């Protein structure tokens, strides 16, 4: 009885608070990450030499440094040069820039998979540059980048737990606090694991549906 009361008054509200913060981390980070990825991916394919070089350096660093190191740089490191951020802002920035680097790889691959002949054909049909981008390149590239980018978003859901390490108290952080007070580590972390499993499963299910929905018969989603 007392156990139930404890769960109702302590555990559930804390975890609910945590889930809200986690979702507030995941949604803006994945949206910003996709934007960064599109910009960087386009720069790597269509940019001039210096732009491509800068974009490649960005990707090498943000894919090469562990996410924990990146988060620590944003939150603990930047005050060194006088820039202060709240843990939440640092986490969103860290997640967006890191996943943007990964997204840019898939988006770059998607752009490269579109054959030169298509661009020439579009030009021959009188498409403007923007029209060609919107009507010819983008619809195909989007479908080809979707599986990779979708995976990256599922990864981001799991990596959002690292925000706890820079004191942004989201689901894992709330769980750690209650668990250390009550020593009920197994119960609490199993519940938290189940919440993450639920989120990742729903996200991958939704992405798979989106892929099927957008699939065009005869169009190969992967470049061969």
């Amino acid at each position, binding site marked *: 009885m007392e156990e139930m009361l404890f769960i109702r008054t302590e555990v559930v509200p804390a975890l609910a608070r945590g889930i809200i913060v986690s979702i507030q981390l995941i949604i803006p980070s994945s949206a910003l990450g996709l934007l960064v990825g599109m910009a960087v991916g386009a720069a790597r394919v269509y940019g001039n030499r210096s732009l491509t070089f800068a974009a490649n350096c960005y990707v*090498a*660093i943000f894919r*090469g*440094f*562990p*996410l*924990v*190191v*990146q988060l*620590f*740089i944003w939150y*603990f*490191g*930047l*005050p*060194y*040069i006088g820039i202060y951020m709240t843990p939440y802002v640092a986490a969103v920035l860290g997640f967006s820039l890191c996943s943007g680097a990964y997204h840019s790889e898939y988006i770059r691959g998607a752009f490269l998979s579109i054959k030169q002949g298509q661009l020439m054909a579009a030009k021959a049909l009188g498409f403007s540059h923007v029209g060609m981008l919107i009507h010819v390149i983008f619809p195909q590239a989007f479908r080809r980048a979707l599986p990779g980018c979708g995976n990256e978003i599922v990864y981001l859901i*799991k*990596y*959002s*737990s*690292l925000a*706890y*390490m820079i004191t942004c108290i989201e689901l*894992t952080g709330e*769980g*750690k606090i209650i*668990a250390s007070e009550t020593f009920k*580590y*197994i119960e609490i*972390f*199993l519940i*938290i*694991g189940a919440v*993450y*499993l639920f989120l*990742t*499963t729903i996200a991958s299910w939704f992405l798979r549906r989106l892929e099927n929905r957008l699939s065009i018969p005869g169009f190969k989603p992967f470049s061969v």
Partner: protein
Amino acid sequence: MIESLTILAGALPYLLKGSVVTIGVVFGAMSLGLLFGIALAVGQVYGAIWLKRLIGLYVWFFRGVPLLVLLFLFYFGLFSLLNINLTAFTVAVIVLGLISAAYQSQIFRGAIVSLPDGQLKAARALGMSDATAIVLIILPQALRLAIPAWSNEYSIVLKDSAVAYALGVTEIMARAHFVASRTYQHLPLYFTAGVIFLILTYAGTKALRLLEERVHIPGYSQ
């Protein structure tokens, strides 16, 4: 500037000792993941239906739950409930290894499935048992095919190993943080830690590329 450089130079040997710990964690986790991952992959391709379901469940669980949550669950929860006293290092190796096994099993499964079906039949026709055929015919080919994806997995495990800092494993990241909180040179120290990770990633993937060329069979192509 000069001050932070001298601090960095002083801290570098300490950080590099941390990279030995990181390499230990990664090596342990990748080996555990390799052995367990191969077993899971073989089970998932050739096993009975209940075994396939069970392995599917394992993969779903370990790919869906964040590393940090699993580290806490195992370190503070499971192992203390069972009264097993393990160091943070060992728990990090086990948890990273179990997660990597789930990912590696999918790499090896893909490689096994991509082999032509006739191979197993031919091996049976030559009088091999299924187990012998899998060990002597299927796996030597599948493992070669899996090296590029495996090298990707290496770079992921290497970067994830930095999370072991949350349990107090004294790897690169933990050491960078110790020194930073004493000297207030946060930015240069974390950046150096990141560069050490970059170098380890580069060295590891390079070594695996060499291995791939080394074990390549002339004339064999998929």
